[in-house]
């Protein structure tokens, strides 16, 4: 059995850990609120953008000459995967879930004999993937220095992807991120952004005919690169809300566990203290009796 002194030290150390996790939980809760708000505020933009593109791609006249960002290169040999994770740890299964999803996808791709290229956004994803897929990672982007998720960062990623697409470095681009459902649930998402998948989505009010100025193709050419950045930005917003949510519940659990541990250790401490007192009493009494 550990000595009284050791137990005392352990209790103190667990208590201070608990203080830290509690503080982290509160910070995450405050940040979560902000992240959630900005995710909600960002929604109209991406929704409207999506609608316009759906309308446009529905009305496009010449399918053969459609922009490549929409129709694809005609191949599906080289896959580019953009894995979006956080820059900081201690957020429960947040990063692990994305990585797990991504790894399953990678395995599927290599099984089909296709080439894989990876861009990691966020340093945690890079840390976890570089051991197995180190030679596949072509770029690692991290926004440690930016305080909030901003569109400027998303645009940087978007431009990078488009640049690579124009150089024909890949055929299909997929992004991985966590969708924020609520504080305890984040759903890892796989979304294909190049070529844009419009088939599954219902085009609303198709009867509405638009006038285009200039023509459809030119607008689409201008719009599609922007849409990439918008999708990335949306993923970043969802991710940051998810990250804070995951951290909050992870830290909540940690705080509770630390509390349980303190209780257990305190009981053990009191027991051994009593045992020591009893032992001393027995010694005194038996000492007195022998006189």
């Amino acid at each position: 059995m550990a000595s009284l002194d050791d137990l005392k030290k352990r209790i103190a150390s667990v208590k201070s850990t608990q203080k830290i996790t509690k503080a982290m939980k509160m910070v995450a809760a405050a940040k979560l609120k902000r992240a959630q708000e900005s995710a909600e505020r960002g929604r109209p933009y991406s929704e409207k953008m999506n609608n316009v593109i759906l309308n446009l791609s529905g009305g496009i006249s010449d399918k053969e000459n459609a922009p490549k960002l929409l129709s694809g290169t005609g191949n599906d040999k080289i896959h580019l995967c953009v894995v979006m994770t956080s820059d900081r740890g201690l957020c429960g299964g947040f990063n692990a879930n994305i990585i797990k999803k991504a790894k399953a996808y990678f395995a599927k791709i290599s099984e089909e004999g296709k080439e894989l290229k990876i861009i990691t956004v966020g340093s945690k994803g890079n840390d976890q993937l570089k051991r197995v897929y180190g030679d596949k990672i072509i770029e690692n982007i991290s926004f440690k220095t930016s305080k909030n998720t901003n569109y400027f960062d998303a645009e940087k990623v978007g431009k990078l992807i488009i640049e690579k697409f124009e150089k024909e470095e890949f055929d299909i681009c997929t992004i991985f991120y966590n969708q924020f459902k609520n504080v305890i649930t984040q759903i890892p998402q796989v979304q294909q952004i190049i070529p844009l998948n419009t088939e599954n989505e219902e085009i609303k009010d198709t009867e509405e005919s638009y006038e285009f100025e200039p023509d459809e193709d030119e607008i689409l050419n201008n719009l599609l690169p922007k849409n990439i950045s918008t999708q990335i930005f949306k993923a970043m917003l969802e991710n940051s809300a998810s990250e804070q949510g995951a951290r909050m519940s992870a830290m909540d659990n940690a705080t509770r566990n630390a509390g349980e541990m303190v209780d257990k250790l305190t009981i053990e401490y009191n027991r051994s203290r009593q045992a020591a007192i009893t032992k001393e009493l027995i010694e005194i009494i038996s000492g007195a009796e022998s006189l």
Partner: protein
Amino acid sequence: MSEEFKVEIVNPEKSFFSKEDVTEVIVPAFEGEMGILKDHISIISFLKPGIITVHSKSGEDKFFVEDGIVEFKNNNLSVLTSSIFSLKDINKSKIQDLIKLTEQEVNKAEISDQVKFLANQKIDVLRSIN
């Protein structure tokens, strides 16, 4: 019959501006300035750097935009843009900074003609409001 329609300007971060009692909006569309009144035909177009002017019963609002998309449908005008600021909120020194930044970009050798054209346009517009 009222001559008013609704306008909403959104940027990626939030809904930037919205008004219900608008009578006319002038947007710098890619092929020239375009005035939009109520019951305009549904239209999609995109923007070049310029000034959006919103005339409404309660006054006039002016915004500087760099790029974006306009969509007009059922008397709802939506403007999607990634870079916008209100002319009221900006001071001269900031405009000067922007001009300088854009000039640097124009002087870079490797940019395409279209980018150069847009950047020059941006400088002109910024100068005009300065």
